[in-house]
């Protein structure tokens, strides 16, 4: 076990394209760090550089006390779990797991002991004689995990290990990975594009966009205090509603954000938390509202100054809650970040300027809303997010803005 330190890590290809730019990450000993981002954001490239499967163009990677830039993968003492599992098709489960140990010339007895212990933990004991082709997807995935675990390496590198499993199994395996990592206490870097996996697994989560690290921190911090539109939109599901609104101050000194005919009054706490917001009075800001910070106004007592009026466009009953889609007459936020987000979801042609924005609210199942009905939505104004409309940076205090 060891810490893993990336300093100024960069990857540039011969044709000038860059996969990773100036990546600084300090992964503590025993930490579970999740690298998350849309496809093509450089997260897998970064992982492969840590593994030694990709050459390093700039910067250094240190594992423990050792700079490993020029160390071949076999000598880095890290284990990797591949998205495709990459099991040796000609070897049975036992030999697949034992492969790395036999190469290290470990005594047969020790190998046997370790393989059987790992197999037990992963519930593979009954399948040790089987070839990979005779295993189910979940079993194959566990063999891939076992192959990494049995070596007790300095660090685990996992490249979307769950993306080939069906939804139910994925949730199970997610819990198993979390438990296993906690029990072994091995430094782990986990790459995924699934923000649920990132939030549930990571001690810390690092969000990347186009090869550049956006923010790294505990999942809750990313959720509560995203540094820019990209992180705000990427973390959380359904994603944060982002649209342009005007920040105004009335004669009583109250601050409001106005859109369409509605206005939301900002509580003192918001202005207190975000001193830099004062500079935006009279200007447009990008307002962010998480779906879970909305509620059917009929179910809330105190709604004054916190209402949006619209017509329910689409109602999705999820059982545990209801997702209500409704249009508001506000311009969608359009920055580099939101375009990157739209690209990721494959909806880059949907949002058009001037057409308004469709918001999604997560209502309690007690709401009696139905499609086509007028809807008044209460917004938890203490949990609003604000971003600069030009740069997409979150508006907090002076330094950040």
């Amino acid at each position, binding site marked *: 076990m060891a810490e893993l330190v990336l300093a100024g890590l960069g990857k540039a290809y011969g044709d000038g394209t860059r996969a990773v730019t100036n990546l600084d990450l300090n992964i503590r000993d025993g930490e579970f760090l999740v690298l998350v981002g849309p496809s093509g954001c450089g997260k897998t490239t970064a992982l492969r550089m840590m*593994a*030694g*499967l990709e050459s390093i163009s700039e910067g250094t990677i240190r594992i423990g006390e050792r700079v490993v830039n020029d160390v*071949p*993968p*076999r*000598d880095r003492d*890290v*284990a*990797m779990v*591949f*998205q*495709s*599992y*990459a*099991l*040796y*098709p*000609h070897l049975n489960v036992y030999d697949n797991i034992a*492969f*790395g140990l036999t*190469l*290290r010339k470990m005594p047969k007895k020790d190998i046997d002991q370790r393989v059987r212990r790992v197999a037990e933990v992963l519930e593979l004991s009954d399948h040790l004689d089987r*070839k*990979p*082709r*005779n*295993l189910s*997807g979940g079993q*194959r995935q566990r063999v891939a995990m076992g*192959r990494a675990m049995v*070596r007790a390496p300095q660090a685990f590198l996992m490249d979307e290990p769950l993306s*080939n499993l069906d939804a139910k199994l994925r949730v199970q395996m997610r819990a198993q990975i979390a438990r296993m990592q906690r029990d072994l206490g091995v430094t782990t870097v986990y790459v995924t594009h699934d923000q649920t996996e990132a939030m549930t697994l990571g001690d810390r989560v690092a969000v990347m966009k186009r090869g550049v690290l956006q923010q790294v921190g505990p999942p809750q911090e990313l959720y509560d205090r995203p540094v820019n539109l990209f992180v705000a939109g990427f973390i959380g599901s359904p994603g944060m509603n982002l649209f342009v609104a005007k920040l105004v101050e009335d004669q009583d000194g109250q601050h409001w954000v106005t859109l369409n005919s509605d206005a939301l009054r900002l509580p003192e706490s918001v202005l207190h938390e975000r001193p830099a917001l004062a500079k935006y009075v009279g200007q447009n800001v990008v307002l962010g509202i998480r779906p879970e910070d909305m509620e059917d106004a009929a179910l809330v007592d105190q709604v004054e100054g916190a209402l949006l009026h619209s017509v329910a466009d689409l109602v999705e009953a999820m059982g545990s809650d209801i997702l209500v889609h409704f249009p508001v007459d506000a311009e969608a936020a359009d920055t580099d970040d939101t375009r990157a987000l739209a690209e990721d979801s494959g909806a880059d042609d949907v949002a058009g300027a001037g057409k308004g924005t469709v918001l999604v609210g997560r209502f309690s199942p007690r709401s009696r809303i139905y*499609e*086509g009905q007028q809807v008044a939505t209460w917004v938890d104004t203490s949990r609003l997010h604000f971003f600069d409309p030009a740069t997409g940076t979150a508006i907090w205090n002076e330094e950040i803005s």
Partner: protein
Amino acid sequence: MTTVLSHEKREVRVVDVPVTGSPKRGPLTRFVSNLGNGAVQVGLAVVAVFWLMPVFGLLVASLRSEQANTASGWWTIFTKPAELTLQNYAELAGNETIWRSFLNTVYIAVPSTFLVVVISALAAYALAWIEFPGRDWLTVTVVGLLVMPIQVALIPVAKLFGALDLFGTIAGVVLFHVAFGLPFAVFLLRNFFTGIPVDLVEAARMDGATEWVVFRRVILPIAKPALASLTIFQFLWVWNDLLVALVFADQDSAPITVALRSQLRQFGANIDLLSTGAFLSMAVPLVVFLAFQKYFVQGVLAGSTK
């Protein structure tokens, strides 16, 4: 939204919906799936019999005396089965020239096949999985050599062998076969190797494997079917070769193809010796084929990646 049900007659449009489900099957797929069909089996049997006719004729001829062979065709055997005799084989067993040439063929074919398979597997691994400058050009060059006809090289190589004292030796013949067998072998194996998921190679490297271990313990076992087909092809080519041996081998190093050819006469041939010898020379490749056939397994990669 509410929908008002109306009882008025509405025009129903028939829309051409593309048929989903099983995709359109090609003629080959249809043929293969019909293999169990009786008519197809009969058809195949007819083709097989037709195809085997000359071989059968050769076998029968080798079992008839020289007189019988010159007097009538082999098919007369159906009416006169008594003509069958093992005498030709007895004579063959005593013919030293044929035996020596048979051994020569073995001495030529075995090393030629072995060397080609070993060298091409190593080369193909490097071309497929190891990055080094000029790799792509080297690959293109090797593939380009495929179009080089053997005949072009006969005279220059003969001169070279003369200078190196290799002319007329088994080693010379082997070298020539290896040289001309390699381009195809490398091409075939490299294509197979690149079809192996890169993740497997990388997983092995992560597991602590050196390139040699990756090659020996991951790639080679997976590549068994390709290696088996290459072995069979290469062995057959060399075993049946006449031209190269005719040019480069001398009396003492001549393989069986050359020895049998020398039995041809302007009028007819020593049919008794020829047919038995030919049958002997056919038997060995058959054994090789059957021995390696078990490696033709489908789906070697199954279960390895997703």
